């Protein structure tokens, strides 16, 4: 099994006619994802390599039965596009766009929490369920099917850790990038709950970083609700306070949000924390046993 995206995914891409949008849509389709449509206002009736393009999400859903949206539009239009997808009844919205204003994210988050749609991202690499579906920009060639569920705030760091795990013979149920923004649509807790309910996932690996308190909150949740093993990595031990480290959400404010505090909170609740990506794979071998 997998979480969020699989063979039942019917994907509609907002911004499909843009350069990046086209490139990644076709990559996702080549991987086997069922890409049913795209949305670009004013380009309805066109197609992208055979994928029909519609003017609105509402027509795309009505005509092609899309149940998942991928948002690839520029930051100033992204909140609008997410809200449109929700209004059209899309169940899962994956927002890749980086640089959406924080207040837009706040309004979108609070609105979506009242409705039926789930948002993953923004500013995330998307979701890969190896062997089933790839929605986003994760390079699928490093990953195969398996029993490690991986959830992360960062893109390339996910690939690094996923690759370290792959070299030890581990595959993944799903890899979920929740994004590096201050207000992610889905938190560690949301995704960990899905992995906990997934019978195939035997180990959950969470990859956090400085800023906010999502890792500390996840630690509490894991202690109370998660039966299987969870392994963590936190980036940013050397980050100075007050400086944003690349991601809008990665900033140590005063004494809060440090990597040390997060690692401590996790370890205090029985979650093992690898000190570098290689050590994460070492600990995975200890927990699940050697695969190669």
């Amino acid at each position, binding site marked *: 099994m997998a979480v969020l995206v699989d063979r039942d995914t019917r994907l509609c891409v907002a911004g499909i006619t843009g350069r990046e949008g086209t490139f990644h849509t076709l990559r996702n389709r080549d991987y086997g994802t069922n890409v049913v449509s795209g949305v670009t206002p004013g380009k309805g009736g066109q197609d992208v390599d055979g994928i029909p393009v519609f003017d609105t999400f509402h027509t795309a859903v009505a005509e092609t039965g899309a149940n998942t949206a991928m948002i690839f539009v520029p930051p100033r239009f992204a909140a609008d596009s997410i809200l449109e997808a929700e209004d059209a009844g899309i169940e899962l919205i994956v927002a890749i766009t980086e640089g959406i204003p924080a207040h837009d994210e706040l309004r979108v988050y*609070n609105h979506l929490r009242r409705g039926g749609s789930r948002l993953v991202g923004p500013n995330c690499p998307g979701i890969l369920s190896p062997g089933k579906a790839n929605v986003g920009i994760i390079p699928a060639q490093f990953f195969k099917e398996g029993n490690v569920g991986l959830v992360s705030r*960062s*893109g*390339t760091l996910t690939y*690094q850790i996923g690759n370290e795990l792959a070299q030890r013979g581990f595959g993944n149920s799903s890899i979920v990038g929740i994004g590096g923004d201050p207000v992610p649509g889905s938190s560690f807790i949301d995704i960990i709950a899905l992995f906990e309910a997934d019978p195939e996932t035997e180990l959950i690996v969470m990859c956090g970083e400085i800023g906010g308190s999502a890792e500390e909150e996840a630690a509490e949740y894991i202690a109370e609700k998660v039966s299987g093993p969870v392994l963590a*990595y936190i*980036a940013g*031990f050397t980050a100075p306070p007050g400086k944003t480290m*690349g991601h809008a959400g990665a900033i140590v404010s005063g004494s809060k949000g440090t990597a040390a505090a997060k690692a401590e909170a996790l370890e205090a609740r029985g979650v093992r924390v690898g000190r*570098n990506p290689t050590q994460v794979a070492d600990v995975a071998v200890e927990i699940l046993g050697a695969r190669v």
Partner: protein
Amino acid sequence: MDLLEYQGKQLFRKHGVPVPDGAHADSVRGAVDAAEELGFPVVIKAQVQIGGRGKAGGIKVANDPEEAKRHAEAILGMDIRGFTVHELYVEKASSIDEEYYAAIVFDRSAKKPMVMLSRMGGMDVEEVAERDPEAMRMLHVDPLIGFQHFHGRRLAFEAGIAPDLIRPVGTMLGKLYDVFEEEDATLVEVNPLLVTSEREVVALDAKVTIDGNALYRHPDLAELRDVSAEDPQERMAKERGLTYVKLDGNVGILGNGAGLVMSTLDVVAQAGGRPANFLDAGGGSKAEAITSAVEVILSDEKVSAVLFNIFGGITRCDEVAKGLIEAFRQVEPEVPFVVRLDGTNDEEGRRLLAEAELPNVHTEATMLGAAERVVELAG
């Protein structure tokens, strides 16, 4: 983007938040002229993006032109916790009856704006809040509804505000919320929120942070960017569209993706080294971008070795290698480089680098191996 006090107060005035009369000055002459224009007594205030200005001697009362001149001379050029004072704000002195504290912050945990109010404002407000948590009242506002009158009343009553001030304090909080929402702020803090001896409520300070991602909606604010406060290397990186943070070590670091670069800094520190910077080159592999990045890193004279850490996903390592070779031909760096290429087409990338026979370039296949090597070379 953190605004200076006088910039924050410009926004306050725009949204009807009462502030004392004042004027900005960047010279002693300008400060004295402004003081005479406003009428004595005045307060001369250092404009730096850090708290604790009063304790550091950056805020002084002047009763006549001579005193204004003396204080302006002393404060301009002063160093306040690492920030040099280039600008002053001259403000008409206020009569002080009480000092409150008010703030609107972006609560990432609740994912809602949080409004805070306390009667115990002024210096050391953090310690007051720690000693007596009940003295700091706070509530969340649903961003889809916005700040309502009841929010203001509830906070004011709970904070123990005097009956005659319940309404003016509530109104003040509503206007501060307007600043927060309409200006795309992630922080609006007023300390002290002053009650004058005429029982008027006035914002005596203004600490405002604007979301950099929303500056396209606020062209007037985008122009305020205070480049004087930025480090020269950070300014150079910004002009070239790179994400760079200067640190104080000697190992230059360049990688792709914010999380991987943060992790690289940590691994270098674990290997016993001290990172000189954070630099995220993004997904690009173009020679131009790599050249820019290498130039920014090497403009820091403390750098004695550089680690280039790439995990190729969509970005192909052979393309990165080509970009790097081209960049080296242009920049001709004198310090050793350790290049770790892993991921898509990594073998081809390492082969291209080896064939180019660049002087002083060492290739490594793993992140840990690369970190150890660069620390050894950096000395």
